[in-house]
C-alpha cells in the first residue's frame, strides 16, 4: 500500500491560493471574462433592487396619489426593470459558462499532464502504484484540485463591492466600522480552524476514494478468478469495508463543512446586528445621526454577499489542496529513463552484446543484507553476432524475462551494459532501441482496437505487409475468418480471441516491424505443437534467406532451441553455462534435466507400466 494521506501543509490557505493562481495564469483570458461577468452580475443585482425602488418612488406611488398614470412612465419603469434583468442574465450566463470552461480546461490540461507522466515513468514506478489509484489521480484528484474554480470568479468579481462598501462605511463612521469589521478577523479565525480541521479529513477521504477505485479495479480485473473460486461475497466484503470507510470519512468531512457553512452565513448578519446595537448607543450619546446609522447598516448588508462568495471558495480549498498534492506527487515523480544522442543505423540484423550485467528489482537491494537473493541477474555476459540466434534456457524464475526487458531497454541494469551494434543502449537516442529491437513478451497484451491496430500499433504499414506478418505468425487463417478481417475489434485485452490467437497477434506485431533484433519470450507457449512447428519453420526460412533478424529466443522445447546457434543456460540469475545445445547436454546436468524432462517422465511412466505388467 502506498503512503497514507498526503502531508498536510501548515499553510493550507496560502497553498490553496497558489493552486488557484496556477489556474488563473494558465487561463487569464477566460478568467478575466468570467470575473467581469460576475462583476456585472453583482452590480446588476444591486441595481435591480435600486431600480425597483426607483420605479416605486417615481412611477407607482405618484400614480396611486394622482389616481392616474401615463403610458410613458409605465413603459420607462417596466423597461428599466427588464433592461437591468437582461444585463444581469448576461452576467450570470457568462459567469457560469466561463467559470465552467476554465474549470474543465484546467481538468483536461492536468489529466493530459498526469497521463503523460504515466507513459513516461519507468515500469518500476508502475509496479508500486496500483492501477485503480492511478485512475483516481487522473480523475477524482484532478477534479478536487480544480473544484474552487467554479465559485472563484464570483468571489473575485464581488471583491470590489466589498472594497466600495468598506470604504463607504469608514467614511461614515470609524467607530461603527471598527465594530463591524470585527467580522473579518472572526471569519479569518473561523477559516483557519476550518482549514486546519478539515485538511487531514479531506486528505483521508481522497485517499479512501483512491482505495475504493483500487479495490474495484483489481477485483473487476480478476473477475474470472473471483467467479471460478466463487468468491463474490468475499470480494464484496472487501469492497464494502473500503466503501464504508469512505462513507465515514465523507461524513467526517461533512460534519466540519456542515458547521462552517451556516456559521459563515451567520457572521455578517451578526455584524450588522452588532452595528445596530452599538449604533443605537452612539445615537443616544448623540455621536451619530439616525440617517448615517441606516446607511452603515445598509452597507453592511451589502457586505454579506461578497463574504459568502468568498466562503464558497474557502470551503473548497482544503480538498483542492489535497487533490493538488496528490496530482503533484505524480507530476513530480522522477526516474524516467534518460536517452542518449546516438542513432542505431544499419538495416541488417543487429549485433548484441551483454556485458557483466547485474539487476535487482528492489531499489535498495544493492546495499541490502541479502545480496545474493536480491539480485535477479548477476554477472550475465554473452554476445550474439548479427543474424545469429541465441536461445536462453533456464528454470522458472531464473531471470529470463528480466533479461529480455534489459535487452529492449525497458529497464536499465544496475551494473554492466547492453550493447546493440556496439552502442550502449543508454546512449541511444529516444525511439532508436524500439525501432531496432522488438520484444514479444511472455504475457500477451492486446489493445481494445482492431486486429490491424494491434499489429501495426498505428504505424503506416501496407496491408500486404500486415498479412505477411500474420502469415509468418500463423495467424492469417483465423484473422481471415473473423467477421471483419483486419478491421475486427478484439475487445479489451483481446477478450474475444482464444489464448493462442492472442499470442500469435502479439508475435505478428513484432514481425511486422522487421526488427533487427527479435526477442521472443516464450512466445509460442499457448499455441499447439503443429502451429508452433510452422511458425518456427517460417522464422528459419526467413533467417536463411538473409532477410532475418538477430534472434534471442526463450524456450524449453528442443525444436526451438535447435534453431539457435548458441544456448545460454541461466540458473538463479547467473549464466550457468554457454555453448551449443549438444555441448550443454553433455556437460550441464541442470540443462539436461530441464530439456529432457518430458522424455524422462515418459521413460519412468513406461517403466512403471512395464513393472505393472510384469507384476
Amino acid at each position, binding site marked *: 500500500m502506498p503512503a497514507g494521506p498526503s502531508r498536510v501543509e501548515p499553510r493550507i490557505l496560502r497553498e490553496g491560493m497558489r493552486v488557484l493562481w496556477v489556474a488563473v495564469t494558465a487561463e487569464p483570458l477566460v478568467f478575466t471574462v468570467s470575473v467581469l461577468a460576475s462583476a456585472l452580475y453583482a452590480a446588476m443585482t444591486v441595481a435591480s433592487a435600486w431600480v425597483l425602488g426607483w420605479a416605486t418612488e417615481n412611477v407607482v406611488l405618484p400614480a396611486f396619489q394622482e389616481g392616474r398614470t401615463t403610458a410613458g412612465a409605465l413603459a420607462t419603469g417596466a423597461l428599466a426593470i427588464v433592461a437591468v434583468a437582461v444585463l444581469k442574465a448576461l452576467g450570470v450566463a457568462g459567469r457560469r459558462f466561463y467559470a*465552467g470552461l476554465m474549470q474543465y480546461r484546467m481538468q483536461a490540461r492536468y489529466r493530459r499532464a498526469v497521463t*503523460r507522466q504515466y507513459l513516461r515513468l519507468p515500469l518500476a514506478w508502475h509496479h508500486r502504484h496500483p*492501477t485503480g489509484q492511478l485512475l483516481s489521480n487522473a480523475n477524482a484528484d484532478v477534479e478536487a484540485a480544480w473544484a474552487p474554480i467554479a465559485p472563484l470568479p464570483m468571489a473575485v468579481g464581488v471583491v470590489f463591492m466589498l472594497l466600495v462598501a468598506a470604504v463607504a462605511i469608514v467614511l461614515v463612521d470609524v467607530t461603527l466600522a471598527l465594530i463591524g469589521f470585527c467580522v473579518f478577523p472572526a471569519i479569518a479565525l473561523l477559516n483557519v480552524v476550518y482549514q486546519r480541521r478539515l485538511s487531514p479529513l479531506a486528505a483521508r477521504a481522497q485517499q479512501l476514494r483512491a482505495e475504493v477505485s483500487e479495490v474495484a479495479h483489481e477485483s473487476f480485473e480478476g473477475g474470472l478468478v473471483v467467479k*471460478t473460486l466463487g468468491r463474490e461475497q468475499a470480494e464484496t466484503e472487501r469492497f464494502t469495508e473500503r466503501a464504508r470507510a469512505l462513507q465515514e470519512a465523507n461524513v467526517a468531512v461533512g460534519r466540519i463543512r456542515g458547521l462552517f457553512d451556516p456559521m459563515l452565513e451567520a457572521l455578517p448578519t451578526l455584524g450588522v446586528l452588532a452595528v445596530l446595537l452599538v449604533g443605537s448607543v452612539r445615537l443616544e450619546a448623540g455621536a451619530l445621526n439616525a440617517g448615517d446609522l441606516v446607511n452603515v447598516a445598509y452597507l453592511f448588508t451589502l457586505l454579506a454577499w461578497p463574504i459568502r462568495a468568498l466562503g464558497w471558495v474557502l470551503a473548497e480549498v482544503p480538498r483542492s489542496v489535497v487533490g493538488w498534492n496528490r496530482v503533484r506527487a505524480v507530476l513530480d515523480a522522477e526516474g524516467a529513463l534518460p536517452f542518449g544522442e546516438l542513432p542505431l543505423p544499419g538495416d541488417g540484423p543487429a549485433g548484441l552484446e551483454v556485458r557483466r550485467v547485474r539487476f535487482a528489482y528492489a531499489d535498495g537491494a544493492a546495499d541490502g543484507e541479502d545480496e545474493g537473493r536480491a539480485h535477479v541477474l548477476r554477472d550475465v555476459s554473452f554476445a550474439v553476432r548479427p543474424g545469429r540466434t541465441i536461445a536462453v534456457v533456464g528454470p522458472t524464475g531464473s531471470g529470463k524475462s528480466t533479461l529480455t526487458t534489459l535487452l529492449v531497454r525497458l529497464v536499465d541494469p544496475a551494473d554492466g551494459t547492453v550493447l546493440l551494434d556496439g552502442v550502449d543502449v543508454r546512449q541511444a537516442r529516444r525511439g532508436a532501441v524500439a525501432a531496432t529491437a522488438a520484444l514479444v513478451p511472455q504475457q500477451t497484451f492486446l489493445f481494445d482496437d482492431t486486429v490491424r491496430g494491434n499489429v501495426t500499433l498505428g504505424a503506416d504499414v501496407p496491408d500486404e505487409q500486415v498479412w505477411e506478418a500474420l502469415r509468418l505468425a500463423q495467424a492469417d487463417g483465423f484473422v481471415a475468418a473473423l467477421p471483419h478481417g483486419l478491421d475486427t475489434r478484439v475487445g*479489451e485485452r483481446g477478450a474475444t480471441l482464444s489464448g493462442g490467437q492472442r499470442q500469435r497477434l502479439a508475435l505478428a506485431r513484432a514481425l511486422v516491424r522487421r526488427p533487427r533484433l527479435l526477442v521472443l519470450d516464450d512466445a509460442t507457449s499457448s499455441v499447439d505443437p503443429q502451429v508452433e512447428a510452422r511458425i518456427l519453420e517460417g522464422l528459419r526460412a526467413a533467417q536463411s534467406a538473409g532477410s532475418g533478424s538477430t534472434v534471442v529466443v526463450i524456450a524449453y522445447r528442443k525444436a526451438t532451441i535447435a534453431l539457435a546457434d548458441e544456448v545460454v543456460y541461466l540458473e538463479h540469475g547467473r549464466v550457468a553455462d554457454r555453448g551449443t545445445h549438444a555441448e550443454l547436454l553433455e556437460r550441464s546436468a541442470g540443462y539436461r534435466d530441464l*530439456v529432457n524432462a518430458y522424455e524422462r517422465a515418459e521413460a519412468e511412466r513406461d517403466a512403471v507400466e512395464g513393472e505393472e505388467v510384469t507384476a
Partner: protein
Amino acid sequence: MTASALDESAALESALRTLRRGLRLSPEFATGLPVTLLLALVATAGRVVVPIAVQQTIDRGLRAPGGPDLAFVRAAVLVSAAVVALTAVSGYLMNVRLYRTTESGLATLRIKAFRHVHDLSMLTQSGERRGSLVSRVTGDVDQISQFMQWGGLMIIVSVGQLVVASVLMAIYSWPLALLVWASFLPLALALRTFQRLLSRAYTAVRERVGDMLAAISESVVGAPVIRAYAVEERTARRIDESVEAYRRAQTRAQGLVALTFPSSELVAALATAAVVVAGTLLGAGGHLTAGELVAFMFLVTLFVGPMQVATEVLTEAQNAIAGWRRVLGVLDTAPDVADPGERGHRLPRGPIEVRFENVSFAYPGGPTVLHGVTVDIAPRSRVAVVGETGSGKTTFAKLLTRLMDPAQGRILVDGVPLDRIRFSSLRERIVMVPQDGFLFDASVGDNIRYGRPGATDEDILLALADLGLADWVAGLPQGLDTPVGQRGESLSAGERQLVALARAYLADPDLLVLDEATSAVDPATEMRLQRALDGVTRGRTSISIAHRLSTAEAADEILVFDRGRLVQRGPHSELVAVPGVYADLHASWTAQRTV
C-alpha cells in the same frame, strides 16, 4: 467508442422514473427525513426572516416617525440575533443529518453495484471495459451526492415556499397573482425541454468519463508493451482524445446550464415588470392600495427565489440522474448465467461425473464454436483435452464450469443439469484454473488462501508440499509473505502459475479443470508438478487442457477437438495408433522433442 450493453435499459426510461427508482435503491435517504425536513424549513425560514427582521429594525426603529425608537431597536436586535443563531444551528444539524444519510445511502449503492458486476456473467463482464466499470462504482455514484445533500431537500422546501407565496399573492390580489403565474408558464414549458437536453448532455458526460478511464487503464496495464514498441505518442493521442471528448461533453452541458439560469432571471424580471405595470393601472383605478402593491411586490420576490432555486436543483438532479442511470444500467442487467440460489441443488461431496449432451455454443454475434459435443466423463478419471489453438477447448472448459450456458444441449453433473446446481455448491466442487491466472496484489500466502479463506499458513505449506512446491516457496525472499505485486507482476510468469495452481488445489475441489495451467512452467518443474498432482488428485476427476502433450500421454482419456467438434477420444495408446488429428499433433510434438 464502443457503446456498453449495460446502458441500454436505463437509457430509454424517463428521468423521473430513473429518479424514483434511484431513490428507492437507497432506503437510507429517507431515514429521519421528517426531522431533517423540519430543520430545513427552520433554516430556510430563518434565511427569509433575518433580512426582513433587519429591514424592520431599521424601518421601524431608526426611521420611526417620532424619531429613533432605541428600545425597539435593541429588542429587535436581540430577537434577530436569536433567529440567526437558531438558523445556524438548524442549518448545521440539517447538514450533518443529510451527510450521514446520503453518504450511507451512496455507500450502499456502490456496494450493490459492485456486487452486481460480479454477478454478471463472464461474457457480460468481458464485454465491458474495466475502467468504465470502475467509474460506475466511483465517480458515477459521487455525482448523486451533490443532489442528495442539497437539492433533494431544497426542492421540497422551495415547493413549500412557492405554495405559501402563491396563496398569499392570491389573497392580496388574484389578478396580479394570475399574471405572475402566467409569466412563469412559458418558463415551466421551456424548462421541460431544457431538462431533456440537459439529461442527454449529462449522460454523455458520464459515458465520456467511462471512456476516459478505460483508455487510461489500458495505457497503465499495457505499459510494458507501449514502451517496448515506443508507441507512447499514439497512446497519448488516444488518451487525449478521450480527455478532450470528456471536456467537450462537460462544456456542452455547462453551456445548457448557463442558458437555464438567465432564463429564470429574465422571466422573474418580466413578472416583476408586469406586476408594476398592472398594479399601477389597478391602483390608478382604485382597485389596489399602494401598501398592498408594495407588499405584493415583496411576495413576488418570495415567489421568484424558490423558482430560481428549483431551476438550479433540477439541473443538479439531471446530473444525479445521469449517475443513477449508469449505476442502474449495471443493476438492471440480469445475469444471463443465473444462480438458482436456494432452490438449486446442493451436490454431495465425492468424485464427479460429467455428461455433455449434444452441446453447441456460439459467442454473441459470432459463429458456432462448439458443435454438438456429446461426451461422458467418468468419475475419478483424468482427462486431457487437446486440439489446435482456437478449436474450442477453453470454451468447453467454460461451459463445464458454468461460466457460460450452452446455446443448445445440456450439461449434467452427477446427473443433475448444471444450471440447477446452486453456485455455492458448484464453485466449491468444480474449480478451474484459467488460462491466464490472475493474482491479487497481496502476499503469496494470501493469494493461495484465496482458494480456501480459513486456511492457516500450515495448511498452505502442507498443500504446497503436496504439490512439491515447498522448496520453491522456501526460496522466495520472504516465503509465504512475499508480495506478488499488482496482477502478480512481481513474480515470474511460471511462478504466477504455481501460485494459481496451489490456490485451486487448496480449494480442494472434486473436479479440477486446468486450462493450460502450467504452460509457462519449466518442463522439469512441470513434470514434478504433474506427478504430484497425479498423486493428490487420485480419486478425483480432473480435466487438463494442454499443448504440451506430456499431459495427454499420462491421461486416462484424451478428448481431441478440431474446429469446434469433438473428433476423437480414447487413451493415448489407442489414439496414436490411428491416423487422425491426435496422431498429427503428437507427431509434431515428438518431432519437436527429438532434435
